[in-house]
């Protein structure tokens, strides 16, 4: 028996799945592709430029902070950058995107020690900083109105209010329109269709737990039906309206499911999803802000450690005497 090199000794198991942090992040990027594509189709080249700026800034800032040459690294910065871009209006000035993306990476993530340690969803931290800093560019009548499939159209000249800002106006949009995404809003949030396709891909790959988006959407729908006021034809339609209008879809599928900032226990994830839905509707129905998903998720992020601690599952065959 001749063995040239030395053998490796390690603890079992000796085989590992091919999945890595990088491959998971790449899968998320793939899942975001339909939404990104729709954003470009609906909002034109400005959307593409905004996305490129956001992704590049995020990757560069992270590479500089970590002093790494490989700017893609594990891909998490690119995901943060793209997610941030998708929840910005297409008409937003470039420097706002740069500041938002850099804040997302630094204040949202690296300050806490980088990937795996951040408490809050970095993209949402970036967005909320932009909202309080330059509200004028981020809300109200600045939501871009899409000109479907008119690539090359300068979106900055035409803006309109998000449907959530004035529900009375929202009646002029049909649900199919909202589903496809030909309404005013942030560039990546309007097309429920594209987001759902991405979501299905993520569920198929086993990267997201149905409990979070499920709990989130179900709560929004139920509260929309019960308290929505039925302005959109009937109560059932109002529930649907709340699901497809605004940021619920992108939030439920991509933001609330961010691994690092959400509970790891199955029960905790359900609570997390429901909590997000609850706070979102609280803000939408009784608050002064038109949209609440950003704040809802950030608040639930803050509660995640506590939720995790109170939802430790029983082991298989565990007897019911709470320890």
């Amino acid at each position, binding site marked *: 028996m001749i063995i040239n090199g030395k053998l490796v000794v390690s603890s079992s198991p000796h085989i590992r799945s091919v999945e890595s942090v990088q491959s998971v992040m790449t899968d998320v990027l793939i899942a975001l592709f339909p939404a990104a594509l729709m954003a470009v189709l609906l909002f034109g080249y400005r959307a593409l430029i905004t996305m490129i700026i956001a992704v590049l800034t995020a990757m560069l800032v992270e590479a500089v902070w970590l002093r790494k040459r490989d700017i893609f690294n594990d891909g998490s910065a690119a995901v943060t950058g793209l997610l941030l871009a998708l929840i910005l209006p297409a008409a937003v000035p470039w420097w706002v995107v740069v*500041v938002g993306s850099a804040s997302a990476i630094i*204040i949202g993530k690296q*300050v806490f020690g980088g990937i795996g340690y951040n408490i809050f969803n970095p993209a949402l931290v970036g967005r909320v*900083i932009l909202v*309080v*800093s*330059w*509200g*004028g560019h981020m809300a109200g009548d600045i939501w871009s109105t899409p000109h479907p499939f008119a690539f090359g159209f300068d979106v900055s000249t035409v803006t309109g209010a998000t449907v959530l800002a004035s529900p009375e106006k929202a009646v002029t949009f049909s649900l199919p329109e909202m589903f496809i995404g030909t309404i005013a809003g942030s560039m990546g949030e309007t097309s429920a269709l594209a987001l759902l396709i991405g979501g299905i891909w993520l569920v198929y790959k086993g990267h997201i737990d149905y409990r979070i988006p499920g709990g989130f959407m179900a709560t929004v729908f139920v509260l929309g039906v019960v308290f929505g006021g039925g302005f959109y034809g009937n109560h059932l339609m109002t529930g649907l309206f709340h699901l497809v209008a605004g940021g619920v879809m992108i939030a439920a599928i991509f933001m609330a499911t961010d691994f690092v900032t959400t509970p790891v226990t199955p029960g905790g994830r359900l609570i997390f999803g429901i909590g997000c839905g609850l706070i979102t509707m609280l803000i939408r129905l009784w608050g002064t802000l038109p949209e609440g998903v950003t704040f809802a998720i950030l608040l639930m992020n803050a509660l995640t450690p506590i939720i995790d601690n109170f939802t430790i599952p029983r082991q298989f065959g565990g007897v019911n005497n709470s320890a």
Partner: protein
Amino acid sequence: MKAGNVYLQDLSRGIINENPVFRLLLGMCPVLGVTAFFINGLGMGIAATAVLIASNVVISALKNYIPSQVRIPCFIVVIATFVTIIEMVLQAFQPDLYEALGVFVPLIVVNCVILGRAEAFASKKPLLRSLVDGIAVGIGFTLALGILALVREVFGQGTILGPDPDSAIQLFGAGFEPMGLFGQPAGAFIALGLLLGVVNIIFKKFNIK
């Protein structure tokens, strides 16, 4: 010469080595609360310094007459008296500033920096050193407030010496859109957090302990 050394030490300790805000993290409430504008921060710092110096001196002078069991209540009464005086002075001569600082002026009374110095220093050390200590810690406190307020005002308002339009100086032309975050409470937290990081880097670089 030796005596001078002690005072110099007290001075540098109060301002740098044991800066109440950057190193000891005491008296943080006004640091966060009134630093949206440089003037306010400075005003708050000076008001607190005045109380600090006065209370340090008085407590040091009275230290032998105060029974140790009730020393804390006594200190508090002394401090509260000076705070009341400062509040009245501000109200009379600087009504704008008084308005801007709001409830944080009477709250100087519970500022841990002041009580902390009274308990840890003035009640044990001679009068002159207590005076120097009061001045040093006061400068340290004012310095920290000033730096934070400057950062917040420059980024959050794009001005310096605001909010009064007569005195405010626009730093970056009309095209500048200030970063509203720094005007917000959240911005105060984040700015101070990052500032602490920067201060730590500086201290590490110069090996100050």
